Each structure stands twice: as C-alpha cells, then as structure tokens.
C-alpha cells in the first residue's frame, strides 16, 4: 500500500506533469532542429512563432465558441488548430520570402542568420502583443479533467490522489501522433527523403535535381505545424501569455542541443531529458520517501533546488553537454 501511495504521489507531481511538459518541449525542439538541419541556422524566433500560432488558434477558438461550435468533452482549440497552422504557415512563408531568402541567396554565414532571426523574433513578439495583448488569455473549454483527485481517491481508496487534466492527456496523445507522422514523412516519402538529402549534403542534393526552394517551403510548412501545435498545447495545459513563450526558448534550445542539433530523435530525447530534470531537481521528495522508507525521517523537504531555479537546470545541462559532448547525445551537428 505504501509503495502504491509513493508511486501515486510521484506520478501526480512528477511523472505526469513532466511527461506533458516534455512532450511540449519535444515538439518545440523538433521545429528548431529541423530548421537547423535543413536551413542551417538557429531560429531564435521559434518561441514567438509558437506564440503566434497559439494566438491564431485562440482567435479561431473564440470565433467557434461564438458560433456555438464545440468539440464535446475536448477543447474547441483542437478544431481551430488547422486554421492556426494555416495562419502561421502564411506568416513563416512571408517571413522567408521577405527576409531569409535574401540572406540565403547571399550564402550568408549562419551567425548572420541567427542575428536576423533575433530581429524576426522581436517583430513577431510585438505583433502578437499588438494583436492579442500582453495578458493572460483563457481559451480552454470542454472537460477539465480525465480523472480528478477526488474521484481517484474514492475509486482506489488510497490516501494519495492522482489527477490527470484533459490538456495533459491531449498533449501526450497529440505529441505521439505528430512525431509518428513526422518520422513516417521524413523516412518513407519522396519529399521527406529529398529533405534529408538536402540536409546531409546541399551540393550533392542540387546535383541530383532536388529543387531547393521546394525543400525550404516544405520545411517552413512543417515547422509552422509543429510550432502551432506545441504552442497551443502549452497554452491549453498552462495558460497563454505571450511572454512565457519567449521564456520557453531557453529550455527548447537546451533540448535541441542536448539531443544533438539536426537530429529529430535527439530533439525528442532532449525534450524529455530537460523536462524530467527540471521537475525532478526542484521537486520535494519528502512525501515519497515517507512512504518508501518509513524509518527514515528527513529534517527538511528533500528538495535539491528551490523551484525558482527551474531555468538554471536547463542552463546547467546545456553547459555540461556543450563542454563534454558538443554534438549532443544523438550525434547532431556541432554548434
């Protein structure tokens, strides 16, 4: 019984939140890693692309809610997601035409593109705040919980409770579907293969007749979809506020770099690694230990770091990986 209680506490406060957070980070890191692999620069505007995608989705969600359309127990935002992706795709393709293509034709050094993407980041950041405002926005509807803490307690008779929010369930399911689809696309379809060829060796790819502009366009479309889905899921699970997406940039980049920039598998592994470390290092383990080791009565909370230092964890992991394994865990390109 004690073992079960310990497991439930751990699942409630560590496993489930960290898994859904990891899925959101992984989706974000996939976008960053794709751009790095194919377009060859670190896209600092990615966090704000997520904010923009989530914003368009929210606007459509409100429209649908106004029309009385709902998705039953699921949030209406899922219905609005395709429209959000379309809007974000338009923005990204427009940005590419207006900004990035110029530098691509110049064969500009990656560091110049990084600085350019920072400029784009500030513009997108301003755009989002201008359209929807800097405040919190509520757009979640439908059932809030798959299982609530109280239901779980009466169902199992355990002392400890487990709750799973709908948004956490949706996040994990959606992430699995999206990742499976992305890997099928990259490994099985002709377009996907041409993208990988372009990423591995640009000159050889051009020689074998791959159209670079088409590869670039498709990359942006995929990135738009990934960013919008990641942004919307994060907004559903936590809350939508433009500034938090800007802060999300650090853990996302940490995930992509830890996994190995340019490696999609690495991005996913990195996302979960960062999420689990952030949550576990700042979690107070006293209750879990109380159940597991009843004879051991710790003085404090058995908490390694205060929750204020959450971002410091991603920073430390990032630094350690860059020092000892610059190509990341899954042999991406070195930074």
């Amino acid at each position: 019984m004690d073992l079960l209680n310990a497991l439930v506490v751990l699942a409630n406060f560590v496993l489930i939140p960290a898994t859904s957070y990891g899925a959101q980070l992984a989706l974000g890191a996939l976008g960053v890693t794709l751009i790095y692999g194919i377009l060859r620069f670190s896209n600092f505007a990615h966090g704000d692309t997520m904010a923009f995608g989530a914003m368009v989705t929210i606007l459509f969600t409100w429209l649908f809610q106004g029309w009385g359309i709902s998705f039953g127990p699921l949030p209406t935002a899922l219905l609005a997601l395709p429209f959000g992706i379309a809007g974000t795709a338009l923005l990204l393709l427009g940005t590419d035409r207006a900004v990035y293509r110029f530098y691509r034709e110049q064969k500009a050094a990656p560091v110049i593109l990084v600085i350019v993407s920072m400029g784009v980041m500030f513009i997108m950041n301003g755009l989002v705040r201008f359209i929807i405002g800097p405040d919190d926005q509520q757009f979640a509807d439908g059932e809030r919980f798959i299982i609530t803490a109280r239901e779980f307690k009466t169902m199992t008779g355990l002392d400890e409770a487990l709750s799973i929010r709908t948004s956490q369930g949706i996040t994990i399911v959606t992430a699995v579907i999206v990742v499976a689809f992305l890997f099928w696309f990259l490994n099985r379809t002709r377009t996907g293969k041409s993208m990988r060829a372009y990423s591995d060796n640009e000159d050889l790819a051009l020689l074998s007749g791959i159209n670079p502009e088409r590869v670039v366009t498709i990359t942006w479309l995929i990135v738009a979809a990934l960013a919008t889905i990641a942004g919307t899921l994060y907004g559903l699970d936590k809350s939508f506020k433009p500034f938090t997406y800007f802060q999300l940039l650090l853990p996302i980049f940490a995930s992509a770099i830890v996994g190995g920039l340019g490696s999609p598998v690495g991005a996913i592994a990195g996302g979960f690694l960062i999420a689990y470390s952030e949550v576990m290092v700042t979690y107070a383990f006293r209750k879990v230990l109380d159940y597991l080791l009843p004879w051991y009565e710790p003085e404090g909370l058995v908490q390694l770091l205060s929750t204020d230092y959450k971002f410091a964890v991603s920073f430390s992991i990032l630094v350690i990986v860059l020092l000892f394994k610059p190509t990341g865990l899954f042999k991406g390109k070195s930074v």
Partner: protein
Amino acid sequence: MKKLLMASAMTAVAASSAFSAAQAEEVKIGVIMGFTGPLEALTAEMGPAAELAIKEVSDSGKFLDGMTVVPVRGDSTCIDAGAATAAAERLITSDGIKGIVGAACSGVTGAILSNVAVPNGIVMISPSATSPGLSTVEDEGLFFRTSPSDARQGVVMTQVLLDQGIEEVAVSYVNNDYGKGLADAFEAAYTEAGGKVTINTAHEDLKADYSAEVGALAAAGGQRLVVAGYVDGGGSGIVRAALDSGAFDTFHFPDGMVSSQLEKNFGSEIDGSTGQHPGTDSPGVATFNDLVGDAFDPTSAFAPESYDAAALILLAMQAAGSVESADYAGKVMDVANAPGEKIYPGELAKALELLKAGTEIDYVGASAVELIGPGESAGNYREIAFEDGKLVTKGYR
C-alpha cells in the same frame, strides 16, 4: 522674430499667472494606486472611494473658505517601483498636488515615500500598504496608513486558524515586500501560539504554471494552505494548481486574496476555505454602504480605508487651516483619534464646520480609524469563509 518671441513670452506669463490664480481656489490631491497590475480588481473600487470623500468635501463648500478639491490619478502599477516613482514625481511637479492617497501596494509605497514624498515634503496616507517594514521607515512624520501593519494581521490570522482547530498549515507567499512581510509575521505569531508551519515558501507573480511550487507545498503537507498573494496574480494560480493536483482542498486567504474575483475563479471548489481582511462592523460601515449606493462596491477590500485616507488628509488641512504638508502633517493624528466628536462617513461637512469653530473631532469613518504608534491603524478585521461558492462574513475581530 523679436515680436514673435515677445508675444510668446507674454502669452506664457499670462498663462502662468492665470494658472496660479486658478490654483488659489483649488487644491489637488493625488490618488496614486496600482490601477493596472496585480491589484487592479481592488483598486477599481479603492480609487472611486477616495474620490468620493474628496468630492464630498469639495461639494460642501466649507473647505478652507470655499476652496475646491480635485483628485488627480496616478498609476503606481503595484509592482514597478520605477513607474510608480515617476507617476508620483509627475503629480507633484506638474500637477502640484498637496497630499497623496496611496499607494496601494507596500513595495511601491515605500519607493514613493522615500524617493518622492519625503524629499518633496508631501503627506502620504496609504489605505492598503500593510508591510510591517513601513512601521519603522524614515518618514519624517509624513507617512500614515489607514490599514494596519501585517504584523497585526499575522496575529489575527493565527487566532482565526487556531479557533477552527487548524494547527498545521503550509504557506505560499508572493515574492515581494507584502508577501514576505505577512508570511514572516504570520509564521512568528502562529509558531508562538503553538501552531506549526510546515513550509514557508515564495512564489513569483504572474507565471504560466505553478505545479512545481504546489509540488513542494504538497510534499510538506498541512491541514490548510495559506496563500499570501494577489488574487489577480500568482495567488489564484497557486490555488488553481493546488486544486487541480488535489494537493489542498481548503485555503486561508489574507487580504490580498479576498475579493469577489475568488467566487468567479473557483466557485464552490474552495468551500470550507477561510480568510480575513481589514474591515469592521462599526456603524460607519453601514453609513458608508448607504452613502456609496451602487456607484461601486463598498464592501470590496480597502474601499472604506481609501475613503478614510482621503478624508483624513482633507480634515487635517482644515484643522491646520493650510494645504501645505508641513503645516497639516502634525494634525492627522489629532483628527483621527479621540478626544472629540465622532465623525462618520457622509458627515465630512459637519466635521469641517466643527474644525473651523475650533472643536476637536474624532474621525471614525468607514473603517473605525484609530491611528497608533507611527501613524497606522490599530486594525479591525473581517473574518470570511466560503460556503456554497459564496463569500460570507463570519464575524469581526
């Protein structure tokens, strides 16, 4: 060119003399509160309350031989000391205010006091800054508050909790002067009275996600979670995350959290929770409620204190026969405390007449003002509880 310069100089002189002439019949009072930011739900009622007192005095025509009083608003943002200082500086230098009602939050109140009010010698009466640190601040006798220090609230909170048999609580406070001051005052009082604080930890305001903070609070455990935060900021986020994860079912809310916004945010999910905020059952409250009518919500936290803060400044001016801070600062305690004829809300005109005749008054006002020590309210608290999704009054302490 010379003519043009002459002409514009002449206009400037004419304009400024007209300006000073207008000033002679009109005195401006600054109402500096966090009209935007984490306390905006409360200041929406506090601002109008202060302005109500100013209007009452101005309309009576009895203030310093018929001078009119005009409120000027400034936004202290509650959290940005730089913005608050700039707003106060602007009101003093360009609007020429003679007294400040505000600010609302403790941190910015301290900033305005030491950077603007003291250097310029302007009296400042805050209706809602409750940090214990402000009791000992260097104010040169210019700072007062119609709300009590949190050291007092910590003691009252301890009594409320212990009377219900709650002997173990976790505390989460917003990481600023108000939160830290209140949490520390509470922990000291509660531990001394035999209670146990399992964890006393900070949360940052306005984050997207508080599940990590709640994880630590849940690990420490406790019969109830004390949330010393802001209802429009992180406080509600903590409550939401605690409910979602099943970490705590009931909460205890100090003043920054007590608002009808809680009913809207959580409804019956927080049934059984308790709280307290400055308030009183003195006859002044009923009078104040009648006086306000539907203009704004007179029962909102700190609305009565705001009315009293503005009234005290004006009555002190009348008692001193001057609008200059140096003259009337010493009179604030005199008009607020006994002896004298008791003055309730809506009787400001009578008070002005009495003061003019040289009679002493004891301003009771809407919040039963009694200034003690360094010029802060002795404190009366309303104990509240949540029943069926509604905020109900349990009594007064």
